[in-house]
């Protein structure tokens, strides 16, 4: 293998580390408790048959070993702090450090959710201020911060639609979902008790207006639409789409996964959206944390407000804030307490650090970066849809596939070049999709390195396809046997089972 073109990354030694259980031995400790200041008790006497004597294989290690264990493991991860994550529809942007600092302020981090409202004014004010900002950003009338993630927000939003339609006399049976949609959309519709009806895209990768008009009827509760859609294309007939739905009494739900293309430039509330969710862990920079936590606020129009999950935040006549539980039409709670408050803190800190001008510049840079990549790579990769790109661009592996190199192989080869792969094989409407979203967080230098890497891989796919097909070559582990993992699942460590080898 030739490393000639690999500019961003160099191989370096990293440490091996087994499972924590393999380090454990009786008597090692990483804790010391303060002496008990109340009389000691006999657990057996207090608990009787319910007492537990042994905690099985829980580890026994020292503090030093814990630091090394997790630090070593951390070095095996790719992360935003190391470089670009060109993941389409997953907006992986810089996670500002000040957000982490303010989220850990004692009064916020140690606040009990049931502490009295009058000593929770700071937390309530943060939630209220964030809610107000998000309302202006989306152009909507009302909001809940309760949902814990995007899919959870989708569920909340669809339940609002269902409650509204029920109040009009008929909850209806089906939800329309474009074939380019994220998998959570149909899964959400099903959770909410709706059947899913597929809506086909047209040749420009957008909603087929005539198909929509013919499919829309009084059985359909509404449409779940991502805008810009998962091809990175703005649905420019969005107002017409909303009209078609509204004329038949349906509603327009917008999946806000791609809001990073719109903030400060246009507002869903202005172009006909009735209800939408935001992903604070995408657009508003709260860290992805290796898969979560997220936060999925749901904003809606006035007609849906009375159905919002309880409690909502209420401004009292004396200017203090409180929770309003007296909401007889509410769809109910979707989560205990008030949502992922720690993420609300971070998102507000992000908005404040940006201000209105920074948010607008952020959106412009995100769109600029995607279009730059599109321009620089369109000679090397096939562009299946010619419509203008917003914050992400989707190529297909059509040319490379002729040599037997698939999108998944190109993605794995990117790892050798020091990048995280883009989103592979999604959206489903593009065979062999390469979905690339750079976000605003990438400098011109990093973008050029990425473009160089993609061009080099395109050359390799033509000249040495085997090299690409077997990538990555530089990681701790080579491609892992996912088939074996799924056929005979090993989902936990066990003391007797000697593992494969190390």
């Amino acid at each position, binding site marked *: 293998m030739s490393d000639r073109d690999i500019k961003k990354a160099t191989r370096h030694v990293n440490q091996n580390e087994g499972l924590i259980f393999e380090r454990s031995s009786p008597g090692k400790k990483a804790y010391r408790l303060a002496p008990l200041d109340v009389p000691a008790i006999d657990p057996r006497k207090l608990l009787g048959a319910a007492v537990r004597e042994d905690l099985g294989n829980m580890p026994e290690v020292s503090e030093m070993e814990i630091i090394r264990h997790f630090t070593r493991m951390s070095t095996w991860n790719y992360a935003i702090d190391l470089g670009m994550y060109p993941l389409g529809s997953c907006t992986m942007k810089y996670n500002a450090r000040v957000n982490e600092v303010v989220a850990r302020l004692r009064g916020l981090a140690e606040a009990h959710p049931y502490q009295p409202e009058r000593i929770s004014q700071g937390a309530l004010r943060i939630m209220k201020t964030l809610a107000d900002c998000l309302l202006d950003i989306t152009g909507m009338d009302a909001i809940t911060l309760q949902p814990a993630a995007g899919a959870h927000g989708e569920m909340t939003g669809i339940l609002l639609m269902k409650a509204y339609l029920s109040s009009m006399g008929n909850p209806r049976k089906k939800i329309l979902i474009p074939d380019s949609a994220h998998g959570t959309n149909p899964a959400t519709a099903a959770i909410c008790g709706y059947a899913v009806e597929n809506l086909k895209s047209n040749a420009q990768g957008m909603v087929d207006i005539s198909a929509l008009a013919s499919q829309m009827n009084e059985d359909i509760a509404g449409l779940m639409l991502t805008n810009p859609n998962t091809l990175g294309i703005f649905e420019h007939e969005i107002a017409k789409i909303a009209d078609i739905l509204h004329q038949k009494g349906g509603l327009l739900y917008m999946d806000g996964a791609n809001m990073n293309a719109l903030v400060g430039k246009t507002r869903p509330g202005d172009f006909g959206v009735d209800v939408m969710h935001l992903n604070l862990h995408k657009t508003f920079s709260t860290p992805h944390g290796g898969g979560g936590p997220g936060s999925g606020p749901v904003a809606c129009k006035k007609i849906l407000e009375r159905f919002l999950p309880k409690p909502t935040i209420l401004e009292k006549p004396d200017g203090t804030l409180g929770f309003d539980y007296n909401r007889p039409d509410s769809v109910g709670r979707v989560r205990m307490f008030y949502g992922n408050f720690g993420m609300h803190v971070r998102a507000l800190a992000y908005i404040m650090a940006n201000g209105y001008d920074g948010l607008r510049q952020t959106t412009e840079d995100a769109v600029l970066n995607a279009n730059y990549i599109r321009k620089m790579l369109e000679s090397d990769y096939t562009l299946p849809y010619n419509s203008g790109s917003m914050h992400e661009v989707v190529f297909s592996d059509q040319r490379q596939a002729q040599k037997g190199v698939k999108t998944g192989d190109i993605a794995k080869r990117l790892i050798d070049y020091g990048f995280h792969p883009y989103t592979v094989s999604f959206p489903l409407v593009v065979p062999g999709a390469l979905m690339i979203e750079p976000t605003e967080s990438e400098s011109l230098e990093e973008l050029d390195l990425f473009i160089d890497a993609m061009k080099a891989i395109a050359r390799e796919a033509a000249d040495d396809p085997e090299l690409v097909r077997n990538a990555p070559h530089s990681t701790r582990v080579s491609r892992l046997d*996912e*088939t074996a993992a*799924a*056929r005979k699942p090993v989902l936990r460590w066990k003391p007797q089972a000697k593992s494969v080898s190390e």
Partner: protein
Amino acid sequence: MAYPKDYKYTKEHEWIQVNGNSGTVGITYHAQEALGDIVFVELPKVGTVLESGKSFGTVESVKAVSELFAPVSGKVTAVNDVLNQSPENINKDAHAAWMIKLELSNPAETNALLSADDYQKYVEEEK
């Protein structure tokens, strides 16, 4: 790939070997190739009544789930439990790794199925 001449085929890529009133069902070589490494098969219980063309189970690879469709109507008389532990048998020899045996409720339905030659043509056209 040679498709056994004494089997009948569906456009959903199942095969059935009919013997009087009983039939043995599996998926074709082409189906397993399209799916890739099969990791799990979900099959009905003995006694389940199947309707021609309706789903009777699923077959899964690491990243795809595919439904199984009954080639004909009938009652399940046997299920190949070996596939629970060794789904890879389908990849090894799809035309031997049967999934269920059926007691046909309407043997005339088999007339609508594809012959080996027709199926082979169908598969080639689909590519």
